[in-house]
Structures are given as structure tokens and as C-alpha cells.
């Protein structure tokens, strides 16, 4: 039942009203609203009960194993949440005087330093509000770099076929055309194709390493050389940084610019779709172009950068300076983990992925890249199951929900048919992995014995399989008043 269906005209959650006297407004009549918007009219208990119960219809890290590949659904420390929620941070206006903000600015400054160190880059800007905005900032910096050198012929960004959708979309937002580079059967980028593709039109290459194929591209040095020799720059999509944190620095691989998804690698909560934070880090030649503001330190005083500090900046990306609350959580996380802890992230994420991969192989599942080590994630293809039982990757995924596990990422990357991208993360225990294996064993058996069970799954969730086609065809994207009386669901 929607919150709109629980209202009654005149009902209010009265304690929430500001109270006090309200003289009539003195606005010009033609600028005043004539009729209040039609909102739910509900009591405080109704609101609390409604949204509490709605929340119970979600899967989440706190309640389920959530091996969603490429999304790094690791435990989100509650301590980070508390620290970021301290009144001094939570009630701080973004434009508060620097003299009253030294504690806050210190955290951000130190976070910049930590991110520079783990990425092996020369400078960091924290302002991008998610991975995709980081990508935008990065490609905009590549663009600014070429322009500053009057190198105007570079109109193309190269992107491996396995890339995340945000990569090509970003390149286009930055005014580039996109050329896809094929990926070989072993998951590495097709170097020959890359060499053929590069040229004076190449502004840069965007890639993740390890890639969304779940493997580390062994030829990264040669790829970097190829791009650099052609005059292009290398962009690193940091969504997979969890796989190599502390182990390999993107800077060492030859990348010129990158973003980090703090809501993945640095364990900040995803919030059912956000917020995130996508700081960018750059090699020294791109320093002048960093998006602003950045926290500067002068003689123990922390301050925001001004236009004088970064006259060539690509500019500002948010009204203030990004998702501060996410940054504070990431800072807390980095401090608690410290040097050794950050390194362990990659080690145990990789251990969990490889172990789980092995166990699924034992069950008879088909790996997309059977000759390779898994990074922090790996891909199985359910094509054999589709052929044998007529049950596809989505059917398997939906049935897995019935077992109380969130599904892996399905049908991405696009190049693997009936694809499952599985990322257990380092915070899950061996027992949890085994429970997942047992569930898949069960489902495999069900597929053989009763395929319909999978094709009509899920069966135990608040709703069964939803009709996406109807959703798109008969667009219903908001409540209409008047519906109360006619509906019966």
C-alpha cells in the first residue's frame, strides 16, 4: 500500500510542524501558490511504520550476502557512520568559516594524501560525487591537457568492450567519440586491435585493471606504452580498486588519471543507489586541471583552494564540494585500516573470489576465463545451463533470491553470454561462501528436475517476477489522486 493510500484529509504529524505564529505571507499574489501540493496526510506512526516496513522488503549487506560483481558490497562499518554523523560535521554549513572548520578540513586534507598514496598519483580532488562524475572529471582533464598543448585533433576515446557503460557515456559527455577495443578470449584487451586503433586522433584510453572480466590485464605495461606513444593518456576506472588496493598502484601501471569509488573500495554505504563519492587522482602533468575546490595546507592552517591556486582547473563539479559525509566515512575507514589493513583488503577479497571460483568449478559451473586467476571477482557463464535446461542467467538469479542471497551481477559485461559477475568481497566469511555454494548446488539440481521453479522465481519475496515490459510501455511513474477509490490491490 502506498503512503498516499493511508492519508486522510486534515490528518497531520503535528509534532513535526514548526509551531509558532504564522502571519499571512506578504508575497505578491501572482507569485503565491494557490493550492497546496497534494501530499500524503498521515500520522507520525503511519510514516514510521510504513517506511520501516518498506525497508524490510529490501535485501542489503546488513541482512544478506550480496555478491554483486563490480559493486563491492562489503561491510559498511557502523563506526564510520557514527563518526560522520557527529553534530559538528552534520550541522556544519558548507560555507562555514575556515577558522571554525579546521577539524573538518584536516580530515579531507589527510584523505587526499591517503588516496594519492594508495593510487600512486601526484594529486587528488575529492569533489566528484560518484564514479561517473569522477570519470567526467578525468576525461575533462585529459581534454584540457590536450587543449593546453594545442593538440586539437584528438577526438576519440578508446574503451575496451568489457567496459562499464559509464565509460563510453562519459567520453561522449566530454565531446569525444568512442571506439571499442575487443577483448580476447582470455579476458585481456586485444593488444593488436589496440595498436591498430591508436593514432593521432586518440585522446586516451579508459580501462579498469583488473577489468570487469575479473582478470588482471597482464599486458598493461605495453598497453600504456602504446597509448602514450600515440600521444594519448590513460584513464583508470577505479571501480575495481578493491582487487589491488595497496598491492599495485595504478600510477605504477602507467595510468595518468583515475577515479576511486569510495562507496565500493572504501566501504561507504550505497544507500540503495547512492550517495557515493568518486575522487579523482592525477599524475603530475594533470595537476593543474584538477576540479576544485581542494583542501590546501599552509603552515598548519587548512583552507580551500582558490582560483589562484588552480587557474587552469576544469572547474567546479558540485554546488559545494562533493559528498562530504561519504568522504568522512572513507577517511575513518582508511584510518582504522591503516597501512596493513588497506593491503589486506586486496588480499582477502582476492582470496575469497578465487576460492569461491574454485568451489563453483567443482560444482560444474563454466568459467568465462578458465585459465585465469580471479581478481576480486570472476565470471561464470550459464550458457550450458540455458542449453541443457532452458534456464537462463536471470532465472538462476531470481531463484537465488529465494535462497536468501542477493544475485550476482547479471548480463554484464555484455561480451559474456548468460553472464554472472560474482564478487564476494573480503568481509564475508568462509562459512558464508559455503552457504552460497550449497545454495547454487541446490538450484542446479532444481534446474535439472523442475526448470519452471526457476523460470517463475522468486517465490518467497514480497512480489514475484515483475513485468518490466509493461512498466516501460504503460508508464506509471507517480501516484494519481483519485486512485484510492478505484484500486483494490
Amino acid at each position, binding site marked *: 500500500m502506498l*503512503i*498516499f493510500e493511508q492519508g486522510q484529509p486534515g490528518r497531520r504529524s503535528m509534532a513535526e*510542524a*514548526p509551531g509558532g505564529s*504564522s502571519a499571512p505571507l506578504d508575497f505578491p499574489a501572482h507569485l503565491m501558490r494557490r493550492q497546496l*501540493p*497534494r501530499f*500524503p*496526510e498521515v500520522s*507520525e506512526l503511519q*510514516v*514510521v511504520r510504513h*517506511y520501516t516496513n*518498506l*525497508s524490510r522488503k529490501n535485501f542489503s549487506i*546488513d541482512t544478506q550476502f550480496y555478491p554483486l560483481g563490480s559493486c563491492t558490497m562489503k561491510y559498511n*562499518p557502523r563506526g564510520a557512520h557514527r563518526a560522520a554523523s557527529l553534530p559538528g560535521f552534520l550541522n*556544519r*554549513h*558548507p560555507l*562555514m568559516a575556515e577558522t*571554525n572548520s579546521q*577539524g*573538518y578540513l584536516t580530515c579531507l586534507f589527510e584523505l587526499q594524501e591517503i588516496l594519492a*598514496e594508495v593510487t600512486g598519483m601526484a594529486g587528488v580532488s575529492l569533489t566528484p560525487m560518484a564514479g*561517473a562524475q569522477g570519470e567526467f572529471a578525468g576525461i575533462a582533464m585529459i581534454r584540457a591537457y590536450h587543449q593546453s598543448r594545442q593538440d586539437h585533433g584528438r577526438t576519440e576515446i578508446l574503451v575496451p568492450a568489457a567496459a562499464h*557503460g559509464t565509460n*563510453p*557515456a562519459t567520453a561522449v559527455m566530454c565531446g569525444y567519440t568512442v571506439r571499442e577495443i575487443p577483448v580476447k578470449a582470455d579476458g585481456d584487451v586485444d593488444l593488436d586491435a589496440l595498436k591498430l586503433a591508436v593514432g593521432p586522433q586518440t585522446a586516451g584510453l579508459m580501462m579498469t585493471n583488473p577489468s570487469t572480466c575479473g582478470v588482471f590485464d*597482464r599486458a598493461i605495461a605495453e598497453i600504456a606504452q602504446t597509448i602514450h606513444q600515440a600521444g594519448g593518456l590513460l584513464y583508470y576506472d577505479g571501480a575495481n580498486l578493491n582487487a589491488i588496493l595497496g598491492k599495485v598502484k595504478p600510477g605504477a601501471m602507467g595510468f595518468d588519471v583515475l577515479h576511486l569509488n569510495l562507496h565500493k573500495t572504501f566501504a561507504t*554505504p550505497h*544507500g*540503495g*543507489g*547512492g*550517495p557515493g563519492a568518486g575522487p579523482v587522482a592525477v599524475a603530475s602533468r594533470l595537476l593543474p586541471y584538477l576540479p576544485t575546490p581542494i583542501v590546501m595546507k599552509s603552515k598548519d592552517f587548512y583552507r580551500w583552494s582558490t582560483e589562484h591556486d588552480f587557474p587552469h582547473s576544469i*572547474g*567546479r563539479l*558540485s*554546488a*559545494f*564540494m562533493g559528498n*562530504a*559525509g*561519504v568522504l568522512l566515512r572513507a577517511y*575513518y575507514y582508511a584510518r582504522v585500516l591503516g*597501512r596493513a589493513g*588497506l*593491503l589486506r583488503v586486496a588480499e582477502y577479497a582476492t*582470496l575469497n573470489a578465487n*576460492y569461491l571460483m574454485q568451489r563453483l568449478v567443482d560444482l560444474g559451473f563454466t568459467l568465462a576465463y578458465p585459465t585465469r*586467476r580471479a581478481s576480486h571477482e570472476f565470471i561464470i557463464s550459464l550458457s550450458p545451463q540455458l542449453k541443457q535446461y532452458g534456464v537462463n542467467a536471470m532465472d538462476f538469479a*531470481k531463484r537465488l533470491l529465494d535462497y536468501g542471497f542477493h544475485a550476482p551481477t547479471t548480463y554484464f559485461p555484455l561480451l559474456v553470454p548468460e553472464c554472472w559477475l560474482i564478487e564476494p568481497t573480503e568481509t564475508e566469511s*568462509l562459512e558464508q561462501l559455503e552457504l552460497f555454494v550449497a545454495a547454487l548446488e541446490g538450484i542446479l539440481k532444481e534446474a535439472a528436475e523442475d526448470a519452471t521453479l526457476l523460470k517463475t522465481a522468486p517465490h518467497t519475496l514480497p512480489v514475484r517476477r*515483475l513485468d518490466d515490459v*509493461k512498466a516501460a510501455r504503460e508508464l506509471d*511513474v*507517480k*501516484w494519481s489522486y483519485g486512485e484510492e477509490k478505484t484500486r483494490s*490491490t
Partner: protein
Amino acid sequence: MPYIPHTESDVAHMLSALKLDTIDQLFDEIPPDLWAEKLEIAEGISEMSATRLMTERAVTSDRQLNFLGAGAYEHFIPAAVWDVVTRGEFMTAYTPYQAEASQGTLQTIYEYQSMITQLTAMDISNASLYDGASALAEALLMAVRCQKKKSGQTILMPMQVHPFYRQVCETIVAAQGIQLQLLPYDEGGQIDQTYLAQLNIEGVVALVIPQPNFFGVLEEVHALTDWAHARGLLVIAQVNPMALAVLVPPGQWGQSGADIAVGEGQPMGVPLASGGPYFGFMTCRESLVRQMPGRIIGRTVDLDGKEGFTLTLQAREQHIRRSKATSNICTNQGLAVTAATVFMSLLGAQGLAEVAQQSHQNCEALIKKVSVIPGVKAHFNRARFHEVVLQLPVAAASVIHFMAKQNIQAGVDLQPFYPELTQHLLVCVTETKASADLSRYVDVLAEAIKLVVAV
């Protein structure tokens, strides 16, 4: 190991299943020369130490009496809002790709879309963009896509749109060759309509109308909308959602309403939090929906015909359309939107209107009180909403500095953004300020001015 559950015997078991001796062997496909040296980062600390550290850091900005607005507004947030929103099931879920396991998030956003369209009187809302500034930038891109048949891609941008919003628009639209043409403001702080009347609109595709504008001043939205529509321009409304509880909504501007309406959602239950996470909202006319960026939630039915919610019109999005998507946005500001939905449900339309009214009255009360200080007065003489440009007898920066030492955040110095506003302070007052707070402000301001004059 913080957050990592592996015991030594777990590791031994797992390695032996992999027929390996060390975890490092799992990285053997990575060329050894790429392996990092030890990180130059301090050793880890306990939750207790980290909490203490952060608590000490937070104290420096605690207990400030805040009169800053300028796009981020201190409204009271009922406790129920974040108590519910920070439940693990909301906070630690991902984007609702598996609809059946995400009905909580999906229905909440559907309800959010319903409320935002009610508030703006627009047809369609998306599920959020990053913040008000990036929402405006996306609106410009969207407007250009919608006007593809028109030649040129210039957007009329009033000077009194938030300066940071204008900067963000510059950053984001520049690469696509879109121009922002600045419009001057008149002596009342509004868009100069006589200037508009003479404007050559060759190559122009849209007009941005802020309501209220950066100065807190109300624009003549009906006349401006009709002016733009008469010339085939799209109207992009940039609005404060709290103000919309009392002001005519963009969907009802002029003869036919704004085409796109965007804004900063923060006033709807999201804490100031140093600038984020907030959320940008975006709404539009139904005919433009396929050019809209960002996620949209639709209602549908399941196999049994039971109501359910799912991501819809995904063909606009990067994960399906890749380089042909309407935007690159993926992660948005879901949790802040969840908070806004709970907030709007709790306050109701009447409650929001009362907050808006109370804020406005407090602001007018402050203006009255402050005007007794010689040389202090409201700079613009038009109707405004809960924010005012105060003209001072001295430089704003010195006053701000002095008052900050007394833990009063006095306002925003306008000089860096508007060189012509040399001694001007942008001050915001919301419903959170009691009469004693206003008196304190006035007293300390008077003191500050005296001191600065004396220097």
C-alpha cells in the same frame, strides 16, 4: 583484522583448496615490477581511537549559530527521518537492479517521484541527480537535446543564478560546445526584463529562471516563462523545493508552465553535512521524458498481477545505451531521496508551508531588527524568500571574520562573486532561529561593525 573474518585456519583451508601456499601467489599474473612498496600510511587504529579523533575534529565546527544559506538551508529534521533511513536495509542496499529484492527502495522512490511532481506541478520526476548544481547542468544538456532541431546551443543564464551552479554548468556543458549567455539583474535584483526585450535570441535554446534567485529575491516567473515560450525557448526552472510550498510551482508558470524544473533537494530533510550528500531533483513535461537523464521508477505488476515497482525506461541509461545514453550518471543520491520522502510524508504539504512561512517571517524579522544599525539595510527592494542581501557600512569579510570568532556564521560575502556588491552580505534565516538568536545576531553584528569602523 578489522572487518575481515578470516582465521588462520580458514586461510589455510582456502589456500589448500586452491593448491597454493600463500595469498601472494594469487597475484602471480601481475607483473612483479608493478607490485607496490609498503604504503606510506599510518598504522591502523581502533574504532575507539578513530571515534575519539573524529570527535575532536568535529568539535571545531560544532555549536555555531548559523545564518548561512546560499543554496544549503538549515531546517529542522524530525528524528524519525534518519532513524528510519539509516536502517541497514535502506542504507546498505545497492541500486535496485534486482527489483523483487528491492521493493522497499523502489516503492520509496516511486513515492518520492509522486511527491516531487506534486510539489513542482510537473509531469515526471526522475529518481535524483547528484545535487542542485549538477541537476541544473544536466537540465541544460537535456534542453539542448530536446531542441535538436534548432540551430545553435546557447542558454540564457541569469547572473543571479547561484554562482557555483553557473560554474558547475560551465564545467559540464563546455565540452559539448554549449554556451551560457549571462543575463544582468536590475536594481531590484531580478532578471532585467528591459534587457531581455532587446535581446537577440539567435541560437538560443533555453532560459534558466531561478526562484527564488541567489539573492533570495523572487523573479517574475510568469512573464519570463511566457516571454521564453513565445520565442520557442525552453524554460528551465531552478527552484527551492521548500519555497514551492508557498510559491507558484514551475508547472504553473505563465501560460503553459516550465518545461524542466530542477533544484537542490537538501531542504527536504537532508542535513547541512558540510555540503553533501544532498540530491538534485529533476522534473519535466511528459513529452520530454525520453531525454531525461537518471533513473526512473515505474509501477507494474508481477506474475500474479500484484502491484510492484521496477526501474523503467532504462534504454535512456548508460548501462543499456552506453555511448548513446542521456547521461553518464549511475550511482545517484538514493539515501538522501529516501530521507526526503520520509521528511515530506511527516511534514505534509501544510507542514512544509508552515516551515516556509516561519522561515520567511524570521528573515523579515531579522531585517527589521538589523536595520536599526546605522548603514545596514536590505539591498534589494523586492519580495524575497527567507534570504536577503544586507548592505553593510563596512566590508562583509571583516564582519564575517569577527562574528565567526563568536561562533556566529554571519552570512556569505558577495564581493568575490559580484564585484559590484562591495559591502554586501547574503543572510539566510530559517524556522530554526528563535527570537533570542536574532537578537544575538544583531548585537554581535553591531559590535563587529563598530570594531571594523574603529580599525
